[in-house]
């Protein structure tokens, strides 16, 4: 990483402005191509047969009748994919076990959840493919299933994986378990800290699985030719991730697969893995024709990653004057059918906003017969914040201290030894709390049956690998090419940073997202990392180009390159060389053919110096005393963005995170029947908030620049989903006097709690 710093006090021309988004017109006019929009000549349709059982041994699969049907071109089962050994790899965001991933894409010996893929078909039409699925005969030996983390830990619980032994405990277990791992994090002596507390609160919290709820279902078109080369068009959070995962799962070289990114209709972490893509390639190879696969919304709910259901037991204590002294938490996170819940991140984020004398968090990763969970915005953190931030609220109340003042008294700040180990560098925890406290919302009067809650949130943000190229056209315009799907406005932010570097109008910069064969490797779009990390790569590539532009100007003028500087879109002689008029980007580009050829720059880097993010949310609710229905009537989000490159996009992230968190708090939950079948796999019954459910969500961007980013950027996409659950729950407590420790706060649950209090 070679990015030099920019003067953080400098006045910028483009950074912090709100130009029209480069992808906006295509999206509002319906021209943008999403995953399901792509079509190829000769293309056929793929569909997936899914398990009707939550846990069953697959005794046999007879595909002969389906294969004999007219119009059916291919049928595949797990036998058509290579058997993958258990192997963890760091491809993507975190460790991935490819055997588990392969078995999740298509079941091998056992179906581990209702909706688990067991076979796939490609046929001339979608209707024929559906008929062919019904002709496949699968003999199952139905096994006992387990749906809840509590039950999965019982001594007589059905075991999902005979080779799963709990990691992180001593002595090493000799019997398989549904508890995949135990991890702990903390500092100081938690019990000693609790012992010296004047007030200790003990609570147990439960949350249900919730879905990321992206509007665009998973979709892919794939071809696999006779030469063994595949091309994939897919909507995802990382086309390099798709290439790497498909190569691994199909036994191919990455050089044999080209992945072309489609526009993405939301991901929120849920599109950081593969489901359909390997199946589409395998079907195409068998059929000899391009194959298109599009999930229904029901399939999205049943078979793609929700966020974990959780149970958290928490004890926190403070002195009577409000100093947090000790905390202990036990976090149980359901991973779904394969290990890998975000409990590791949860134990690290849980106490991060606070400077506590002694704290300990124990995390347990538990497999159950439900769909494998996937990342969802700040994975693991919202549920952990629900527990800590409501108990902090209760402790503040016991001490008679204003809840924001209580947080300020205990806030972690630069130099604080974090609960997860290292000392914090420059962070904006204090600044966001102070901004929230000063906001008019915090002191506004409340109406009848209304209450106000606040909560803090923390997320690490990510760095990882990014590449970019910058090309100069002979008319002096710029093309910025990167390898990250644009989910939250990265085209705009990358173009703006390039315009700032060159000192040209942002309209002269064309930001493009290239396929895996065109631009250097980039890790996926996740971890709130693209404007930060890919932005660094773009800045470095721009500086590479500017260096060349100075060299070209020096050669045109016949002076030393050290005597040429670049500013405001032009090369300028610095030594007072008389008569040397500045050479603009266009001037130099026009002469490129005669001064050395085309001008382009590139950069590939592993981004270091991630800026961690804090947020504070203020929520007002009104609770109907007759029905228990909760309406959010006012909501304000305050967040440290480091520096907002395009404030509208930052505000959009803040509002979107708040909306999703409010839905998580009030409405959303996976509901299963006794057989492990999800009963509400559609947006009619799985109730996400819509615009009419919410007030205008006010935003306050706090800017504590990240000193290691050239423009001070911190990631902004994830932390806004961390505070909403406790902010809503604390507001409901303020309105009703009841503290509810299980989500969602549906009207029956709130009414029951209110009735219990009244009685």
């Amino acid at each position: 990483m070679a990015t030099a710093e920019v003067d953080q006090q400098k006045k910028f021309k483009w950074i912090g402005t709100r130009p029209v988004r480069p992808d906006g017109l295509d999206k509002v006019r319906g021209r943008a191509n999403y995953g399901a929009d792509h079509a190829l000549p000769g293309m056929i349709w793929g569909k997936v047969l899914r398990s009707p059982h939550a846990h069953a041994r697959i005794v046999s699969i007879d595909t002969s009748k389906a294969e004999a049907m007219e119009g059916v071109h291919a049928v595949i089962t797990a036998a058509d994919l290579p058997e993958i050994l258990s192997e963890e790899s760091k491809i993507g965001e975190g460790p991935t076990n490819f055997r588990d991933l392969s078995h999740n894409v298509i079941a091998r010996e056992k179906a581990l959840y209702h909706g688990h893929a067991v076979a796939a078909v490609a046929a001339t039409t979608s209707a024929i493919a559906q008929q062919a699925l019904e002709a496949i005969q699968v003999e199952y030996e139905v096994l006992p299933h387990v749906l809840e983390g509590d039950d999965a830990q019982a001594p007589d619980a059905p075991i999902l994986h005979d080779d799963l032994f709990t990691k992180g405990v001593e002595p090493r277990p000799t019997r398989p378990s549904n508890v995949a791992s135990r991890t702990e994090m903390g500092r100081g002596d938690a019990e000693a800290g609790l012992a010296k507390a004047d007030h200790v609160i003990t609570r147990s919290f439960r949350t249900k699985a919730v879905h990321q709820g992206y509007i665009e279902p998973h979709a892919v078109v794939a071809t696999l030719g006779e030469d063994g080369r595949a091309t994939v068009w897919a909507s995802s959070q990382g086309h390099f991730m798709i290439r790497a995962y498909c190569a691994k799962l199909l036994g191919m070289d990455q050089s044999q697969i080209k992945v072309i990114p489609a526009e993405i209709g939301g991901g929120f972490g849920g599109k950081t893995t593969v489901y359909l893509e390997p199946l589409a390639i395998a079907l195409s190879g068998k059929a000899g024709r391009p194959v298109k696969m599009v999930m229904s919304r029901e399939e999205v709910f049943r078979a793609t990653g929700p966020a974990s259901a959780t149970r958290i037991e928490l004890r926190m204590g403070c002195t009577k004057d409000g100093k947090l002294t000790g905390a202990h938490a036990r976090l149980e996170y359901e991973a779904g059918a394969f290990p890998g819940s975000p409990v590791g991140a949860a134990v690290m984020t849980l106490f991060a906003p606070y400077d506590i004398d002694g704290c300990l968090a124990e995390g347990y990763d538990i497999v159950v017969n439900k769909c494998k969970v996937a990342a969802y915005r700040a994975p693991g953190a919202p549920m952990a914040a629900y527990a800590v931030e409501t108990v902090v609220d209760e402790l503040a109340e016991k001490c008679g201290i204003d809840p924001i003042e209580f947080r300020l008294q205990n806030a972690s700040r630069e130099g604080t030894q974090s609960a997860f180990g290292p000392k914090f560098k420059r962070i904006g925890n204090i600044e966001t709390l102070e901004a929230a406290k000063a906001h008019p919302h915090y002191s506004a009067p409340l109406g009848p049956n209304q209450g106000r809650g606040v909560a803090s949130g923390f997320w690490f943000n990510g760095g990882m690998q990014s590449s970019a190229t910058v090309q100069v056209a002979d008319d002096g315009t710029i093309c910025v090419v990167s390898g990250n799907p644009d989910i939250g406005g990265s085209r705009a932010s990358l173009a703006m940073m390039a315009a700032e570097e060159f000192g040209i109008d942002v309209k002269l910069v064309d930001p493009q997202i290239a396929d895996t064969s065109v631009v250097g490797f980039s890790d996926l779009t996740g971890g709130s990392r693209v404007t930060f990390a890919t932005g660094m790569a773009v800045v470095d590539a721009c500086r590479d180009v500017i260096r060349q532009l100075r060299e070209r100007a020096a050669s045109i003028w016949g002076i030393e390159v050290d005597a040429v500087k670049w500013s405001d879109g032009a090369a300028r002689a610095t030594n007072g060389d008389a008569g040397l008029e500045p050479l603009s980007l266009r001037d130099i580009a026009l002469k490129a053919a005669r001064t050395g050829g085309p001008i382009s720059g590139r950069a590939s880097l592993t981004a270091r110096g991630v800026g961690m993010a804090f947020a504070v949310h203020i929520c007002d609710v009104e609770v109907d005393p007759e029905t228990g229905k909760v309406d959010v009537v006012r909501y304000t989000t305050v967040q440290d963005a480091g520096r907002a490159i395009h404030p509208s996009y930052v505000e959009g992230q803040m509002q979107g995170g708040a909306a999703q968190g409010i839905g998580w708090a009030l409405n959303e939950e996976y509901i299963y029947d006794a057989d492990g079948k999800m009963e509400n796999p559609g947006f009619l019954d799985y109730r996400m908030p819509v615009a009419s459910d919410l007030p205008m969500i006010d935003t306050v961007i706090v800017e504590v620049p990240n000193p290691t980013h050239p423009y001070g950027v911190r990631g902004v996409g994830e932390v806004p989903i961390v505070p909403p659950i406790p902010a809503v729950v604390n507001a409901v407590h303020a309105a009703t006097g009841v503290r509810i420790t299980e989500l969602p706060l549906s009207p029956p649950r709130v009414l029951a709690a209110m009735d219990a209090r009244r009685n």
Partner: protein
Amino acid sequence: MARVILTGSLRDLAQTKDTGPIEIDAADVRELLRKLEDRLPGIAKRVEDGLSIAIDGDIVADPLLEPIGADSEIHFLPSIQGGS
């Protein structure tokens, strides 16, 4: 000398109750891991399998050549998965 501080589950690497800071003279992560392996057997494999390292508060997901200062503070952390 850089100070290596073990927290949470990683304290089991020390195989002793004394998990106090370990002082190591190393110029970069590669040298640090090589020298630590004698005192914390298995640490290099754990890092390879997915541990991150925080060097003076900066979390590095896949470290090898990152420089370490004479007074650096080193923490080992689980890798973090994001999702926005």
